């Protein structure tokens, strides 16, 4: 461990700190900084440079000994032998608009929250016209755009501050309130935000926009499982087929994609056999049209899952949640190591 004064001949204490943090061999070395009394800006600069603790001069030597002891215990017990536990990112995607993607994303997030009581975050990544806020009846006072507008470097704490809470315990990162602001969010932001959310939450459900821009691709890059929502109609079916071949090119494992056939009972559409023949794979989940109660629930901003637990639509969503929980627990996912923000 390193104990260093701020004022030194040659490079100063901050620079020393930064250099130590930059070097792969020494970046985790505990650092205690000695600063002048009451100099708040020196203290902040020290932490920014990477110091773990500081002590203002003059100090009682005994205090230094305790600080050293504490810091060493803290750092060694913090130091993870394995990478930080990472929550699972589930992306809900519709190859065409109007297939009920947001209803399913919101219901899934709530189902995961109800089933596990763990920390679940829904991300409205339908950046231009997202309406997760409407489904959950949350006043959109803060959104993803506040994170990217504040600074170039996105920190975990900044994201925590813009999350909005739903009475169910679910948390939401909303889309920008104004469509034109969606342009402020770029692909790098998306990656950084998802990485930070994944280390904060057990499940991150992403309501993804129906487009193939680089922000969507960066979402897929970080996704553990894709829920691909289709309806029994020719338009969605054709687009879904195209998406599946694109997913192959993107290196998304076919097993990491589940197809959800929504409104499978609408009676006017294409039969299940025909759908599976066109897509050349099985439909994983069937969701019956929730009908009027689902629409009413959306309009009132009270998701059906919280009001009518016995409703068939709710039962199906809970079933999907259970299956995903099981599948993601056992899946050996190889993901890039997230930054520790």
């Amino acid at each position, binding site marked *: 461990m390193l104990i260093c004064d701020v004022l030194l001949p040659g490079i100063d204490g901050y620079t*020393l700190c930064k250099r130590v943090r930059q070097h792969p061999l020494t970046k985790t070395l505990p650092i205690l900084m000695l600063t002048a009394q009451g100099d708040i800006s020196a203290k902040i600069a020290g932490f920014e440079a990477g110091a773990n603790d500081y002590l203002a001069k003059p100090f009682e*030597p005994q205090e230094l000994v305790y600080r050293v002891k504490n810091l060493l215990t803290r750092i060694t017990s913090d130091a993870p032998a394995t990478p930080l536990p990472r929550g699972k990112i589930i992306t809900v995607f519709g190859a065409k608009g109007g297939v009920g993607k947001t209803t399913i994303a919101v219901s899934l997030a709530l189902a995961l929250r109800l089933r596990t009581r763990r920390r679940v975050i829904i991300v409205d990544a339908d950046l231009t016209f997202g309406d997760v806020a409407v489904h959950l009846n949350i006043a959109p006072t803060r959104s993803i755009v506040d994170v990217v507008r504040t600074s170039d470097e996105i920190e975990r704490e900044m994201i925590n501050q813009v999350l909005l809470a739903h009475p169910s315990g679910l948390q939401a990162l909303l889309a920008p309130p104004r469509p034109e602001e969606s342009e402020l969010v770029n692909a790098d932001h998306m990656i950084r935000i998802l990485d930070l959310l994944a280390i904060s939450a057990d499940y991150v459900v992403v309501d993804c926009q129906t487009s193939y821009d680089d922000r969507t691709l960066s979402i897929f890059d970080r996704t553990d499982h894709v829920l691909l929502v289709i309806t029994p109609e020719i338009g969605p079916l054709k687009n879904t087929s195209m998406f599946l071949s694109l997913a192959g090119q993107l290196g998304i494992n076919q097993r990491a994609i589940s197809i959800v056939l929504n409104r499978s009972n609408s009676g006017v559409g294409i039969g299940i056999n025909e759908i599976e023949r066109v897509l050349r794979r099985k439909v994983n989940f069937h969701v019956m049209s929730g009908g009027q109660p689902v629409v009413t629930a959306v309009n009132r901003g009270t998701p059906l899952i919280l009001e009518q637990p016995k409703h068939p639509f709710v039962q199906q969503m809970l079933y999907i949640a259970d299956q995903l929980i099981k599948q993601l627990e056992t899946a050996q996912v190889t993901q890039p190591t997230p930054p520790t923000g």
Partner: protein
Amino acid sequence: MKPPTLLIVDDDDTLAEMLELMLRGAGYEVRRATSGEEALQQILQDSSRRADL
């Protein structure tokens, strides 16, 4: 297990010497450097050999 090694970087010799005595008394192995450059050199040399500094 060897005690953790501490490196004190301070150009104030009197203070550094006092700290060294205190920390040795608390059971740590202590070394000193008087400049940032010297500290970096020591840290890097040590880190390539052992992990706890």
